[in-house]
């Protein structure tokens, strides 16, 4: 491993986290993993990609969902586990993340990578937020939405989902400062500026 390092990026919906990660990866000339993890996890397990897509960054349990039994181990408990359970998919995906993280320098976006790689000796964990207006604008462009309300809805829904997923699998709090090494608002310096700033941060840490 030696000089390898990993950068794990958590991000609010619409904060430009993915773009920043991509830029950073280009500048540092290391690979970048976001949705690509799904393909890799599918290949590793022999399961279809759609199985992972359905479970991607979703936590299964809400009190009401559990009440309706739509999301739980309803019929019996204990000795066996449904093989399409999100928990298993999480395990497979996290094995892929671990394998990649220990094999080479790379950047991960989302999917609890900071938690999965918490024992990695050279890891930096970032969280990227942005002003709400900037996020709405970005979401409207990315998802081709016409109204601000729809964009706000989507943002709220996605953030809730990501927080649920993160908190469920890590027992930590998504988006709170103590979970990360650096929390940054991308509205201040813009996408490019933020990527440059982080690049400096990463270089200073790992050189």
């Amino acid at each position: 491993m030696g000089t390898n390092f990993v950068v794990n990026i958590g991000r609010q919906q619409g904060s430009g986290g993915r773009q920043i990660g991509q830029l950073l990866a280009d500048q540092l000339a290391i690979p970048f993993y976001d949705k690509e993890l799904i393909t890799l996890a599918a290949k590793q397990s022999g399961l279809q990609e759609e199985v992972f897509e359905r479970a991607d960054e979703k936590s299964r349990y809400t009190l009401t969902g559990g009440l309706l039994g739509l999301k739980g181990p309803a019929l019996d408990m204990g000795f066996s586990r449904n093989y399409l359970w999100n928990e298993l998919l999480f395990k497979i995906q996290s094995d892929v993340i671990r394998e990649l993280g220990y094999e080479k320098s790379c950047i991960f976006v989302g999917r609890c990578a900071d938690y999965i790689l918490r024992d990695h000796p050279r890891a930096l964990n970032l969280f990227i937020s942005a002003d709400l207006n900037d996020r709405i604008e970005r979401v409207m462009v990315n998802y081709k939405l016409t109204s601000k309300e729809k964009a706000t809805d989507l943002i709220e829904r996605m953030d809730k989902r990501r927080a649920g997923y993160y908190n469920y699998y890590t027992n930590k709090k998504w988006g709170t400062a103590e979970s990360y090494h650096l929390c940054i608002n991308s509205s201040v310096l813009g996408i490019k500026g933020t990527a440059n700033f982080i690049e400096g941060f990463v270089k200073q840490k790992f050189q």
Partner: protein
Amino acid sequence: MKFTSNPTELGQEKVGKLLVRYALPSIIAMTASSIYHITDSIFIGHGVGALALSGLAITFPLMNLAAAFGSLVGAGSATLLSIRLGQKDYESANAILGNALTLNVLIGLSFSILSFIFLDPILYFFGASEVTLPYARDFMEVILLGNVITHLYFGLNAMLRSSGRPEKSMFATVATVVINLILNPLFIFGFQWGIKGSAWATVISQVVMLVWQLKFFSNKSGFIHLQRKTFKLQKQIVTDALSIGMSPFLMNAVSCLIVIVINQALLRTGGDLAVGAYGIVNRIAYLFIMVVVGLNQGMQPIAGYNFGARLYKRVNEVLKITTILATGVTTFGFLFANLFPEAFASMFTNDRELIELSVNGLRIVFLSYPIIGFQMVTANFFQSIGMVGKAIFMSLSRQLLFLLPCLLIFPRLWGINGVWFSMPAADLISSIVAAVLLTQHFRQFKRKELEEENVRQEPR
């Protein structure tokens, strides 16, 4: 059986071989628990009397409810535990273990206190009469005293399974059965403790194994072990665990409700001994049903994985094999219940009237057994492949949509036989529902399979 990140053997190994490997431990554990229930009833029936069996049957719903509260904590914390262990996050895993213990104590204690205060009204509501109430009360008082122990014992057993020690959990299960088997005759025949003796045997067997479990979990060199600081409840763990446990809790609560309605109807139409007869029929039915449950649990990972990997041929194969085996088991039950009902019933009692009532009940209730295996496997199949909605619908509709109305109407028309016939009638309707849902599913399935074949042939 447990999370493994290299599940590809599920897509390659022979299906029949896999099924045996995955189902056998479950079947053994399930059978052990059936045997425990059956022997309990046998000792009470012969050692205490026919009416004591009725008293025992009245406690079934209350025991179900206690188990429901157990699964509320157990299912969730076990799931959370295996997630954390999968990440080698032993600190969080320990927190979950500690929290689960605290939750079990809190819930077990509240359940005991509330049930103690309202014990008589509850038992009357569950189908007791002045004659049978003392038996039910005697039994329940001891069980409720030990309720916290029961909760802890089952909770820790679930933890053993999800922490990758299923063999330890199985040992504990079998050990409680054996201890119970030794203590029961000693207390009932030796000490003349009556029905209380049987309850003490249950509680003591669990105390012994709980001590054993605690010893295992106190070993500081183990990956997870009990630590004082982990007992303080954490909001995130509690809400996650309870949310997961909610649906098994509700399923158990529904079965509790159904048993209450059955007991009440039998008391109305056939008197105290009819309730006892249900106790006998229920124990024997349980024996066959639990084997199918074990088979189902073995099928789940195999069907689930292969479905997710689009190996539909293997999905069909495992469904077929499981259905055949399950149908074999339940048909076996049907044959036995109809050919030798006397032999079954007189295992439990010498009382002529109770034997006759049980024989009649056995004959009718087992009528649907040749098809019930199919129904159960189908519901489980839908769950395995992620169509949880259909699975829930199938099991809830069987109980609430079909069985409940039958139980409310039939007894008014045909008396005690109406109660018995409600069960095969509901099974028949729900098997038809299962057949419809499965056929519907297979149409889509076949289409997909053909597409798969086409895709696969191209590169070759």
